[in-house]
């Protein structure tokens, strides 16, 4: 006898859950359908099956350039954010200091700043200091945005670890850095990879801040945004959309499952 849900209640809620999931995925499925549709305009009735849009998108060098730029920015961002995140997380979980609540609030504060304000603030900063916009400036903006996420992934994992292991290594004479590299790091590796992934995907998809400080280069979201206004490119964009969405879904699900499996294997 379940105290929280009756059998009927569970059935209703399950149906509701299914409905919502369908609602969430339906637009993606619709995009999938129309990515193979022969017409330039996504509308019913369907006009026939074609791979043309996928072919067009592979041959679209502007699009490839945008994907490349985004990949570069995202890679740099994830490396930077994870490095900074590791430093910060260790300090938060392994050190005691009085300003901890304040510091942790500061480290997490980029989570709550509206991106429009942050984007503008960077624009003003770089403009006033005379720094040109481009990949480095987007890298800077994205590391700030993704740093809280990496911390939020790393801190729980670091807290989970049995500190006795580290202390043992310490007592045996290993320096702090060696302890970290030989003991802590391998144990938090799955979390680090998770953090990488989150930072990467966040940066790859980020439009708002990038639009302010990208200068003349084009990242994938920026390309998408302007392509949304070019009807002739719409079918290609849909094809890209499907590819990106499906790939990212697979990656996310795969990574999460992988992480849990890996952590369970590392568990004491």
């Amino acid at each position, binding site marked *: 006898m379940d105290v929280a849900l009756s059998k009927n209640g569970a059935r209703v809620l399950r149906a509701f859950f299914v409905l919502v999931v369908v609602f*969430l995925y339906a637009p993606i499925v*619709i995009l999938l359908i129309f990515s193979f549709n022969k017409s330039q305009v996504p509308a019913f009735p369907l006009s026939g099956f074609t791979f043309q849009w996928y072919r067009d998108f592979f041959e679209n060098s502007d699009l490839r350039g945008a994907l490349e730029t985004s990949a570069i920015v995202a890679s740099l961002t994830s490396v930077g954010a994870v490095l900074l995140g590791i430093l910060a997380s260790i300090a938060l979980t392994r050190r005691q*200091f009085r300003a901890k609540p304040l510091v942790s609030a500061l480290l997490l504060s*980029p989570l709550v700043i*509206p991106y429009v304000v942050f984007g503008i603030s960077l624009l*003003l900063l770089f403009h006033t200091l005379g720094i040109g916009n481009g990949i480095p400036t987007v890298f800077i903006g994205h590391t700030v945005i993704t*740093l809280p996420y990496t911390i939020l992934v790393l801190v729980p994992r670091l807290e989970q670890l049995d500190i006795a292991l580290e202390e043992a290594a310490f007592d045996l004479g290993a320096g702090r850095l060696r302890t970290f590299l030989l003991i802590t790091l391998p144990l938090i590796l799955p979390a680090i990879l998770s953090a990488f992934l989150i930072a990467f995907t966040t940066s790859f998809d980020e439009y708002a801040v990038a639009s302010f400080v990208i200068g003349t280069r084009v990242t994938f979201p920026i390309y998408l945004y302007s392509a949304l206004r070019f009807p002739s490119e719409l079918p290609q964009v849909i094809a890209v959309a499907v590819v990106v969405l499906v790939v990212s879904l697979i990656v996310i699900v795969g990574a999460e499952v992988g992480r849990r499996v890996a952590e369970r294997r590392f568990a004491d």
Partner: protein
Amino acid sequence: MGRGEGVLRRRFNLTTPSLLGLPLAWLGVFFLLPIAFVALYSFDVYTLYPGAHGFTLAGWRATFHEPIYLRLFWKSVKMSLTVSAIIVLLAYPLAYYLALSGTKRKYILLLLLIAPFLTSYLLRVLAWKVILGDQGVINTFLFWTGVRSPGHPLSQLLYSRFAVMLVLGYIWLPFVALPIFVSLESLDRSLLEAASDLGASRLQAFRRVTLPLSLPGIFAAFLFVFIPTLGEFVTPSLVGGASGYMYGNQIVDLFGTGFPDWETGSVLALFLLVVVAVLTIVFSRFLQPRQVASG
């Protein structure tokens, strides 16, 4: 399992600064300093075009002299409040089901729910642009099935306030379920059992036990969607049309199109930031990082 909150007792206290130095410096220069610049531009200490400048409140006074920008802000607040309230209401039963129905695959299902949120934001907005137009998927489907005649599409689906709120809700719904799920999951079942033993019906147990205890999760969820949508500009610019114009769009316009007015734009941006900061501080106890633990 030991708690990691312990201290690696060590001699010199150089570790903390050396660990925190880089991240804090990074944020100081690239997060706090830029915000300071927004303030400085709003006070005319810096200007876009050469001309008179020096600290002055003129920009602030001029911007808020007319109620127009405040009214736009209020419009955005109302839209965000509506969206946030609705999707929190929708997300609660989802989280409840996952956390309390005893289903074995709850984490997989949670992932299934959250996954769309982790894919591309723009692409999901694109999907709705394709779906909502006068000749979009919904309308042409209605024409095709004869429910509506061509020439009488369901207008106002796209380029409207409705479109903005629908899309924003769609985007954020998965994310909102997470904090509620976390707080429901950590619910002590024995409390419910006790209530049941004392004769409470399920509904009563819910109202008296579950709901109050999950309130922090609800608040957190609400804030997690309310705060970002306040400053939204991407969705409104893609599906909002003239009537879906929000506060964030105004700020962007002042920095981009037409005749850039960095002073007014900075004033508006700083205003938004102050409101968000106040909200965050006041409700900070509901925004515990722990409640957003990954997965």
